[in-house]
């Protein structure tokens, strides 16, 4: 009896549906994406764009791709949006429980092991490409995790469809002696390079700076790409009292109830049973 993993019982049926019944397979929402991570002198900086695509359409122009694994361990995700969100969510819960049972603050490499073991079991079918970064009591860590379960540990990482454009910026700008401001600026430029040059990435820039016992999340630090030129000037909220009241009717919601003897005896019958 198969335990765990995927259940392929419906595979035959799905193949027939597509071939004979012209069934239209629904498109998965992907996070086209540019995600980036850089290690600097005091910690790590994670960056991401905010565009979620469904084929050639932008499904969400301002989604959050940097997920919380624990207070000082965060993870940016590329690939299928459902896979990245649920995988990071699950491992976050597992890590919390582990940390409570061991009585120790969680380590980045624990999250790494949990994630890679989970993804490997599914042989790449769970399409989650992750950039995991954080600072624990052993220092700053930055890892990349591929959908098949392989991992790399590097000082600078980029993943997603915009990773080539971002990597070009990282390769020219990275040096091992960077401080916080340099690292933030480099990550920002790398994400911007992805947003401008890759069609699967777009929207705003999100940044996350993690240092020892400190985390700063800069949501939408750069919105120059989503400033619409023409905006409706008036807001959609209307002051209370703007709409004229023509008629008022007040009805009692409930009639007063009377307790009848019949109902009491019914209850007694039930209690005997």
């Amino acid at each position: 009896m198969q335990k765990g993993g995927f259940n392929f019982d419906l595979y035959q049926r799905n193949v027939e549906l597509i071939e004979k019944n012209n069934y239209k397979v629904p498109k998965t929402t992907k996070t086209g994406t540019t995600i980036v991570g850089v290690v600097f002198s005091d910690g790590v900086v994670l960056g991401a764009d905010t565009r979620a695509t469904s084929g050639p359409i932008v499904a969400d122009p301002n989604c959050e791709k940097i997920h919380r694994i624990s207070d000082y361990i965060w993870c940016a995700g590329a690939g299928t949006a459902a896979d990245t969100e649920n995988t990071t969510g699950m491992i976050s819960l597992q890590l919390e429980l582990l940390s409570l049972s061991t009585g120790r603050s969680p380590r980045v490499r624990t999250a790494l092991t949990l994630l890679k073991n989970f993804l490997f079991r599914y042989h790449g079918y769970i399409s989650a490409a992750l950039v995991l970064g954080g600072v624990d009591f052993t220092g700053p860590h930055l890892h990349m995790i591929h959908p098949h379960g392989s991992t790399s540990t590097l000082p600078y990482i980029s993943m997603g469809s915009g990773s080539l454009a971002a990597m070009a910026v990282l390769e020219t700008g990275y040096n091992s002696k960077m401080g916080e401001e340099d690292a933030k600026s480099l990550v920002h430029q790398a994400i911007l390079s992805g947003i401008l040059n890759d069609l699967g990435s777009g929207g705003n820039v999100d940044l996350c700076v993690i240092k020892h016992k400190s985390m700063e999340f800069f949501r939408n630090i750069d919105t120059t790409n989503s400033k619409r030129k023409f905006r409706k000037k008036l807001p959609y909220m209307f002051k209370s009292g703007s709409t004229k009241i023509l008629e008022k009717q007040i009805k009692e919601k409930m009639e007063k109830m009377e307790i009848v003897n019949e109902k009491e005896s019914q209850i007694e019958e039930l209690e005997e049973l």
Partner: protein
Amino acid sequence: MQPKKKTLRPIVTGSSVLGIKYKDGVILASDTLGSYGSLARFRDIRRIVPITKHTVIGGTGEFSDFQEITKILRQKIIENQELVESGKEEDELLPSEIHSYLSRVLYGRRNKFNPLWNDVVVAGFEKGKVHMGTVDLWGSYFEDDIIATGYGTYFALPLMRKAYKKDMERDKALEVLRDCLTVLFYRDCRTINRYVFAEITKEGVNITDPVEIETKWEIADWQEGKL
């Protein structure tokens, strides 16, 4: 049954060609590698060649097809020379005319399902201005101030787009090209650290001998977990 007599897939290939306009002209750059799949087979080929005194072409893709294109264009130049000498044509062919002619040749071949498997950069000086553009194996014609082919489109173009300014200085243009070539050496498997630069100004064409560019490997010393 007849055997297939057309290009099925590229065999000996060249990687990216980059081009950037600057104040006095244009500079093209490429490495000197002809890959045989994953083998670095021919380590000193010329993927940027002069066609006339004022025009240069650079090729990505199947190297034999690039040699064929060079032959076709040089033949066209000779034909045109004969017409000039007999008074039927005004002057030598302009870069934009060569570019246009090449796009028709490549489009014609694609229509016969037998393409010349290349992405060609055509650059030159005409009427006091620079002309630069590409044509690819599908026959797509494109002109711009910054050009990249092959993997250069993914790695070099974002960097060139950031750094490019109209009428930039020669040194700045060379610096941008060197940065892009270095990134390509780090991230494109089918490259080597040996490059040729071709500079075209109103004086003419100047193609350098192969040079090596320094690369940084300090991340080899990086240790995880150390602040």
